[in-house]
């Protein structure tokens, strides 16, 4: 596989973490426009730790995930009782605030005579840990997908467990879930932390794949895209968001033939697809149908 194909596959893997993060919140009944901010927190935190403080990537990734979870909790706590569009707009506001904060951050250290670190809108160059350690693109791809498979395993376990059913119950009807003894707030905060960590993990991997990040990478477009991936692919299973990402980035890359018209064709297709399947391709009904056929 040439570098380009590896690059596309890696991108699909990276965005999938963000799509899974939005999906996790969606099945718990929370529509978030802000997962891109926690993706950004992971990217900046991971980049700073490796490029400026020489941390090893795995350790930096864990720290970034913790920060991402903490950041999402900070947003989730005050907005616990918001629902629907109110919650979505609160997350949008929080995410845009974080993006602007990334633009205001100028924090650099001199390493080998060069200033390394986030420099506001100039971005953060030189996150070269992967190159400094001679990791081949194919190996980085393997790491990204190993972690993605781990996350997916977690989701599929969740789907089968009672916790998974509880989450969907909270998503369907929080009042009813509360009436049945579910601590809805604790559920929501747990989901928020997990979603924040997931998005941050994607962010760390993106920062080290791209070696450069800037605040505009984490704008509202990425946020609504991550929501769209979950919905297009289907809300029935964790494979749905991944399908959504493959359709988007796979189709965008694949449709070279449409060159300048990609978004025109793709945008129209997505709208039509949602008319046919409002809850995505792999929605709950399809998943149940498949389970009945094969179990």
């Amino acid at each position: 596989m040439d570098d380009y194909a590896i690059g596309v596959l890696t991108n699909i893997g990276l965005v999938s973490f963000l799509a899974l993060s939005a999906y996790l919140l969606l099945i718990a009944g929370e529509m978030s426009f802000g997962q891109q901010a926690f993706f950004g927190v992971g990217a900046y935190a991971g980049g700073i730790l490796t490029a400026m403080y020489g941390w090893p990537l795995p350790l930096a990734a864990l720290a970034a995930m913790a920060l991402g979870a903490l950041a999402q909790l900070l947003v989730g706590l005050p907005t616990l009782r918001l629902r629907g569009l109110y919650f979505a707009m609160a997350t949008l506001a929080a995410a845009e605030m974080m993006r602007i904060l990334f633009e205001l951050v100028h924090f650099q250290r001199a390493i080998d005579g060069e200033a390394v670190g986030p420099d506001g809108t100039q971005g953060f160059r030189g996150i070269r840990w992967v190159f400094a350690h001679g990791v081949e693109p194919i190996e980085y791809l393997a790491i990204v997908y190993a972690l993605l498979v781990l996350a997916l395993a977690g989701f599929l376990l969740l789907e089968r467990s009672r916790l998974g059913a509880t989450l969907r119950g909270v998503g369907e009807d929080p009042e009813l879930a509360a009436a049945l003894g579910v601590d809805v707030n604790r559920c929501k905060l747990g989901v928020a932390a997990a979603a924040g960590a997931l998005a941050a993990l994607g962010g760390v991997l993106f920062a080290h794949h791209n070696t450069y990040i800037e605040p505009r990478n984490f704008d509202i477009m990425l946020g609504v895209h991550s929501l769209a991936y979950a919905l297009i692919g289907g809300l029935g299973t964790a494979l749905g968001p991944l399908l959504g990402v493959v359709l988007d980035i796979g189709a965008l890359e694949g449709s070279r033939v449409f060159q300048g018209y990609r978004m025109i064709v793709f945008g129209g297709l997505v709208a039509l697809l949602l008319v046919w399947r409002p809850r995505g391709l792999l929605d709950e009904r399809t998943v149940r149908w498949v389970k009945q056929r094969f179990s």
Partner: protein
Amino acid sequence: MIDLAQNTLDGLFLGSSYAMLALGFTLIFGVLRRVNLAYGPAIMLGCYAATWVHLNSGAGLLALAAVAVLCTTLAGAYVERLCFAPHRQGSAIAAMVASFALWMQLEELATLALPRHIYPFPPLHGGTPLEFGALTLRVESLVMLGAAVAACAALWWILYRARFGIAVRAVIDQPGAAQLAGISVPRTFMLTFAMASAIGGLAGFLVAASHEQVTPMLGMMFTLKGLLAMMLGGLGSLPGAVAGGLALGLLEAHSQWFLGPQARDLIAYALLFILLAARVPWMTTRSAS
């Protein structure tokens, strides 16, 4: 002191454009209970159509305004038919994500028609701004204020005096009952969507004229500012939309003067977040779950 007055004037001008955008969003949300993310890009497409006409013909300002309003309304009708009509009984998220897909589509359509990143747009009044003592006021600002007032008055008249207003308010209040009262709900959706698009097209035209340029980014700006103003004023309330728009305009004008553009947006979003988190009364009137 002069700065305060000047900023307030600029804030009112900015706020009236946001108020019109928020009115458009609120009309659509009020009737459909859905958020139309493609509202901004449809307006941007209207402005691009006017730019295209301006580049290829010596059409006057009024004609350009008409083109902007008409093309926005056409783009709005297209969005309504593809994203909102099929999902009337269905899920709100599907309709919203579909409108996001069309946002990307409309944006690429505009950049295909006019590929350059920025295009000049004719101002309403070429000359120097008007002087009131130390205060300066551009013609565009006056026209924008006038347009906002006219839009509010027209909307108020339609909703509370005209027969069609009964239909719109009935559909907003209880769509099931509206059907039984003999009101055609689909037709009311389309006409309300057209009204909202017309107001948006006019606002877009005036913003383009006052910036004297158009870029594809206008779409995102219109959508974000419209949403922000609508939410600040209380989701689904028309007077709230006007109040939210003006408040946002004043807040931005003042914070930009004292703290710079980044701080301006930061403060606007921070205000929205705090108000939402505090669950202020006027924001939780209509549940938008």
